[in-house]
């Protein structure tokens, strides 16, 4: 057996992760660091980011910055600074986002604005900044947008969130076309219900009856944050070098039925 054969290695790849202060994004940071990546971690929550930095392997190799991704000028400045410090970018995980459950009939325009700005605009412009010539590595790489099963399928109370996630899914297909000439692959990932410290206290997870219904909808039960992080490693690594413009369901079979 060739013990050096590892097409999933991220050794010396520079990976940007937004929303890295908690949840799935934090696990992505931990897992990517274990696979050898050098990280650029971004989040509004400085305390959470500092905590993530304690959990990653070789923290001295990484860069982190507490910033508001809606402050596009600051994003531009921070990415340049990070590239100077860590190196040109090979991968980007657009994890940052917010979720909500609200009904169509009571949704206000300002709520839609907020969700599109936080979930779509930030990912759009962070990707634009990272992909600038001079910031992105000449040999190409991989961009991943975090969509959701709610961005693919219908559900009560998820229209606002689902629309933003559908936008990211579609965006990834268009960018796959535009960025292929620079060997930058662009894909989206659509997680199902994942157990995270934050959502364990939400009604659909906490209430045993509601949780049982949710579990039954996922053929393999509910997911763990490492399930999503491992899928991201695949999409960031050379193992997926011929994969672009696709959407990877990581949902324990939720979308099959």
């Amino acid at each position, binding site marked *: 057996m060739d013990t050096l054969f590892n097409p999933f290695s991220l050794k010396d790849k520079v990976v940007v992760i937004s929303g890295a202060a908690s949840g799935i994004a934090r696990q992505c940071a931990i897992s990517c660091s274990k696979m050898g990546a050098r990280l650029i971690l971004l989040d509004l929550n400085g305390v959470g980011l500092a905590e993530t930095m304690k959990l990653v392997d070789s923290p001295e190799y990484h860069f982190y910055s507490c910033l508001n991704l809606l402050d596009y000028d600051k994003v531009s400045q921070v990415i340049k600074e990070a590239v100077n410090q860590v190196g040109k970018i090979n991968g980007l995980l657009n994890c940052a986002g917010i979720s909500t459950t609200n009904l169509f009939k009571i949704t206000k325009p300002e709520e839609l604005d907020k969700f599109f700005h936080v979930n779509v605009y930030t990912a759009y412009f962070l990707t634009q900044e990272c992909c600038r*010539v*001079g910031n992105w590595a000449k040999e190409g790489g991989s961009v991943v947008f975090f969509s959701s099963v709610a961005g693919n399928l219908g559900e009560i109370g998820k229209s606002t969130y689902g629309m933003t996630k559908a936008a990211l899914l579609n965006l990834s297909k268009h960018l796959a076309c535009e960025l292929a*000439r*620079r060997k930058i692959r662009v894909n989206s990932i659509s997680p199902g219900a994942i157990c995270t410290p934050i959502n364990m206290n939400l009604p659909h997870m906490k209430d045993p009856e509601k949780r049982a219904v949710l579990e039954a909808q996922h053929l393999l039960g509910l997911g763990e944050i490492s399930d999503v992080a491992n899928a991201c490693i695949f999409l960031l690594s050379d193992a997926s070098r011929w994969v672009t413009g696709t959407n990877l369901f990581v949902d324990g079979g939720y979308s099959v039925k």
Partner: protein
Amino acid sequence: MNEFLNLFKEAIEREDEVRLEDEFRKYDEWDSMAYLSVIALMDDKYNKQMEEAEFNTLQTVGDIYEICTKN
């Protein structure tokens, strides 16, 4: 002129240097997207609109620079 060269370079997403005497169609980066980006650059930054037929007569980066900076 340097500002134009930098903007042009960014528009066509070229890492290597760009010079006025270069024939831009010979760049590896030159394709339909680069063309659209340059047309957008000319319009946005220099308020110059150009039909494809007219653009097709341009040969060098300097030809584009001249159009952009002409009053």
